[in-house]
């Protein structure tokens, strides 16, 4: 069994489709096999990374800043957590956490699970991650944030949650963080690419007030796995101070060129892939307007699908989406007359896994399902690739009916 994420009916994850420029760029970097730690070994890719970071910072709305590309949004979130911790108490780098007063961090109930993994990996502990309540649209409730007693060293807002595609109200959250002097990290791994669209960037209004942002172009912008940046507002070298180890065999100070270009010591990694390049080449080829069209198209198609779902019998939207996640139930004919009580929901919960199995064994399409916050298994349709058209959306609904009508 083989799964092709470039297929126009692959909707299973927060990445999909193929960009030919990105693919060519990836073939080039595979052939060159560089490691982006020093200018001497990787002159082109290091300079490209700096240029891309600078451009992404511009879209966030900072005058200047810093950043690095990482192997995943989860790792970007870890970087931000560690950086905020370092800013709060730089001694932790040398002394560790033992014996220190416990630090906590706040994030929303809808945050990505990497926040928990990060907390345990970094020695903070998953119990010290406090989950702030969200509203019925999956957005963090700022008043709930303000209510918390303890002072966190980090507040993490999410711009584009994994399941619902919700955007936390960044301005209100930033107000609270500023008032209390808290580090605000925005996990915009999924939603960050909306910044490229003049029409939709308002979803992230207030993001310039963040101290750090995680943004994964390999998701909505199809830059190719992996392409994940951590951007930092600080321009005083905090990232480097936090992470450097000054290894003498790599970062010699007596090189024949300006060693400030050796940016690898900002990373927790030693050898590192040239992940920014594929994004750069694609951006050069398409221009900002080309990338913007993509985002607009994906969200327009999502809107189309939502309207179709509302029109069709047997399909029920979970909520009005604000991004590219369209969450819905398919209710087979046999359940349509049933009252919406516990028995109905219990039966409906069993429908999605069967449909999923059937679609995969047939190979006609792929989309994901999950239970979430007390709601039984529902489908999460994600639209990304420009190859996808209305026909594919119609197909999705038709195929679901075909696969499930006997349930």
């Amino acid at each position: 069994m083989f799964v092709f994420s470039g297929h126009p009916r692959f909707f299973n994850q927060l990445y999909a489709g193929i960009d030919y420029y990105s693919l060519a760029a990836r073939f080039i970097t595979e052939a060159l096999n560089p490691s982006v730690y020093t200018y001497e070994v990787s002159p082109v890719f290091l300079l490209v990374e700096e240029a891309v970071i600078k451009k992404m910072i511009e879209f966030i709305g900072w005058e200047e800043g810093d950043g690095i590309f990482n192997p995943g949004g989860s790792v970007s979130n870890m970087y931000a957590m560690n950086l905020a911790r370092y800013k709060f108490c730089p001694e932790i780098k040398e002394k560790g956490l033992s014996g220190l007063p416990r630090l906590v961090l706040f994030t929303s109930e809808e945050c990505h699970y990497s926040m928990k993994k990060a907390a345990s990996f970094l020695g903070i502990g998953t119990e010290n991650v406090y989950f702030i309540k969200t509203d019925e649209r999956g957005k963090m409730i700022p008043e709930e944030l303000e209510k918390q007693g303890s002072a966190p060293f980090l507040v993490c807002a999410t711009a584009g949650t994994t399941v619902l595609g919700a955007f936390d109200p960044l301005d209100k959250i930033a107000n609270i963080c500023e008032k209390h002097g808290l580090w605000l990290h925005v996990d915009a791994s999924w939603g960050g690419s909306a910044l490229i669209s003049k029409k939709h960037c308002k979803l992230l209004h207030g993001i310039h007030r963040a101290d750090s942002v995680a943004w994964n172009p390999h998701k909505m912008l199809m830059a190719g796995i992996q392409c994940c940046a951590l951007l930092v507002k600080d321009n005083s070298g905090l990232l480097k101070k936090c992470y450097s180890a000054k290894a003498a065999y790599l970062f010699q100070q007596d090189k024949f060129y300006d060693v400030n270009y050796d940016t690898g010591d900002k990373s927790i990694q030693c050898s590192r892939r040239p992940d920014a390049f594929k994004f750069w080449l694609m951006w050069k080829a398409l221009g900002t307007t080309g990338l913007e069209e993509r985002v607009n198209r994906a969200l327009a198609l999502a809107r189309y699908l939502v309207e179709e779902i509302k029109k069709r019998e047997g399909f029920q939207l979970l909520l009005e989406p604000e991004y590219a996640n369209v969450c819905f139930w398919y209710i087979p004919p046999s359940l349509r007359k049933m009252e919406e009580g516990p028995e109905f929901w219990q039966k409906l919960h069993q429908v999605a896994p069967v449909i999923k199995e059937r679609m995969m064994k047939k190979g006609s399409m792929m989309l994901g399902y999950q239970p979430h916050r007390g709601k039984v298994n529902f489908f999460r349709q994600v639209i990304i690739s420009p190859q996808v058209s209305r026909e594919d959306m119609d197909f999705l609904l038709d195929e679901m009916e075909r696969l499930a009508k006997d349930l």
Partner: protein
Amino acid sequence: MAESSSLEHPGLDKAAGEEFLQEAFQILLEEAVRKGMDATEKVCDWREPQELQELLDLELRSHGEPRQRVLERCRDVIRYSVKTCHPRFFNQLFSGLDHHALVGRMITEALNTSQYTYEIAPVFVLMEEVVLAKLRELVGWSSGDGIFSPGGSISNMYAMNVARYRRFPDSKRKGSWALPRLALFTSQESHYSIQKGAAFLGIGTDNIYLVGVDERGKMIPEELEKEIERAKAEGAVPFFVSATCGTTVLGAFDPLGSIADVCQRHGIWFHVDAAWGGSALLSRKHRHLLTGIERADSVAWNPHKMLMVGLQCSAFLLRDSSGLLQRCHGASATYLFQPDKFYDVSYDTGDKTVQCGRRVDCLKLWLLWKAVGTEGLERRVDRAFAFTRYLAEEVKRREGFQLVLEPEFINLCFWFVPPSLRGKEGSADYWSRLGKVSVGATVLRPAPSKP
């Protein structure tokens, strides 16, 4: 490639895209692969950073560019990049190009998937398990666990975190605040990722006890014992020892058997950072360098170094097969790891990692291994050793060249003493003047001419 904004039709010109790919592929095959491996071509086309920035025209603009311009950019990028596959690129602990592995990498890119669940990456989930099992077999374990991670630094961090979790399982939930001061031990020649790991994990770099090495760069087990006693006397709790097999600069191998004895006596997690030296396990002639590795609790091994499979390919191997890795890292996200899937969800191995999305790193290694066999890999390793021996002899023979020490691996460290300094070893400023000449350690690993 204009993209239609109408939702009626696909917004992607596949024919134009494929044509572009074909052209780009021809360019990279000629400029990066063929010329890159040609000894008569340059290893690097040096430019000062500011000049290179201008040449590359890095700025990202609102409008796109015609296809030919983009292809020119591909040429420029290749031209000004260092050719790490060049037969005279010896700068790092990786070099060369294997065509099978490169094909594996290109297929990986074309398929563009993440490796968290069986449904998403069925082939690669199964393949990863097979490859990891093979690596474990070479280590000497008939069972165990593991995962591919984005680099040896992160593999070492995994080891540190799993060791902490095993010793103090509550720390996953509660954090390290209430733990006693933890102590970890590694040699003075160890890789700096141990430092970065200690800082990142909240253990603290001050709590790394650096163990002395002998004149060959190998950890002295008696010193390790002393440091452990010292840490205990200071009220710290030793929880992790990292021995290195193939240190970064000198290529030294710590004496694993004696170190294992010490760890066993004190009940401390024994990790072996074999990121560099692990590949010697493939050679029946040279694997003795890692005698005792089967006594480790965990091993880091990077096939992207000596086996030339391409960055990144770093295995974190674990002797435990009780699911420790899963318990340590698992978060059971319900949108990925649903328990009610229609297949056996124990194949969904993604929750063992600290990553969510994760690259497929196993295909390039698997394809190479299938193509050349263990014997083919062994021949490569033996050949690299043989060439090192040859170079060491030549260095000894030639005037002006001086070995730093006899290599036991394939790091050859030497000074070039220019004529003006020869015979002046007694003078006070000899070493500082020599230090200005030197390019530091060189690593000899010629790409094999045949697989």
